[in-house]
């Protein structure tokens, strides 16, 4: 694809990629910015080889995910690949920033009970701002299936949060 289209591509995806990286580097703004820059510069270099049949989101997300894995493995030399791939979003630092920290903390605790694929879907859909269509292309499934999965996961979350409220 012609690199003249890249600025528009960048504007469309920068927020999603930044948020995705931000929560996976312990809400460290500086590191998230560095990684975002690296990801987009890498994407720019590979843009002429970008196959338009693949969704843009899936393509840039793959670059971001691989770059993050490389970066984390450089920093933690002894981590296993599985450990790196399941890098969780570190909630504590942004809980403090939130105005109503209690409900955010309850939600994060409830999210800990979810399976990793459910958590990933919820994070990417409701925090990073991906559409079901983009997620379906990236996860190689249908948006309908993801919609159902997301609804079920939200119900699960709701139950967990209610349980925690009743416990306290």
């Amino acid at each position, binding site marked *: 694809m012609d690199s003249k289209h890249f600025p528009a591509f960048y504007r469309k995806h920068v927020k999603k990629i930044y948020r995705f990286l931000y929560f996976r580097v312990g809400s460290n703004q500086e590191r998230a910015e560095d990684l975002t820059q690296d990801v987009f510069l890498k994407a720019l270099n590979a843009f002429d080889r970008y196959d338009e049949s693949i969704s843009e989101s899936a393509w840039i997300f793959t670059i971001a995910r691989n770059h993050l894995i490389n970066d984390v493995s450089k920093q933690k030399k002894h981590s296993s690949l599985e450990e790196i791939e399941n890098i969780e979003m570190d909630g504590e630092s942004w809980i403090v920033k939130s105005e109503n920290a209690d409900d955010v903390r309850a939600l994060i605790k409830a999210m800990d009970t979810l399976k990793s694929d459910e958590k990933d879907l919820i994070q990417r859909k409701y925090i990073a701002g991906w559409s079901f269509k983009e997620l379906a292309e990236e996860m190689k499934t249908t948006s309908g299936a993801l919609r159902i999965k997301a609804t079920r996961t939200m*119900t699960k979350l709701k139950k967990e949060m209610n349980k925690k409220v009743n416990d306290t």
Partner: protein
Amino acid sequence: MNRQIKKIFKRISKEADPDPRFVRALELKIREEISPRQPFSMWWKATAISITSISMMTIGAGTFAYSADAVVPGHALYPVRETMENIRVRMTHDDVSRAMVQMQQLKRRLREQQVLEMKQREFPTQHLDRYIRTLDSVIEESDHFSPEARQEIDQHIFEIQNAFSDDARALLRQKQGMIRRRLEQMSPERRQMLRELYEVRLSNPEPIR
């Protein structure tokens, strides 16, 4: 409840937004990567160099001579600084503004002295004379200023004199070093002759006037 959870997610998502300045800066960087500045043609390059050189020699040299720390007494551009300073003094419209400009110039003299000291170079006597003459004339003129203007001038003089005494000490140290170096370079006979002369001088000091 689902709506409430989505609301919390929305808030978290907002807090995790990138800084707009970062987004803009990265976009600029990307645009620069895509279309780097075109190199100049040979003709344009030659013209640009000529224009830049002439500008530097006229405006640039003046500005550089006037403000750069590198321009100290003995520098090729120092006479340009002196001329520009004289012009600035002549352009003032009354005694008070002239005194203020001279105060600024005295502070620059101090700065030059500090630079010379850092470079371990000698402080020219002629430079020191000019410095003292300006200070004296400002003190004399400020006698008939308004109390407010005089207070401001006095404050500057106080700062300059404080710094000046340090400079004078530095000057003395430099002079002692200079004398020692000259003595070392002299032949033993000449050194002996000078020592005898110095002893005669010490035994018959001139009366203090």
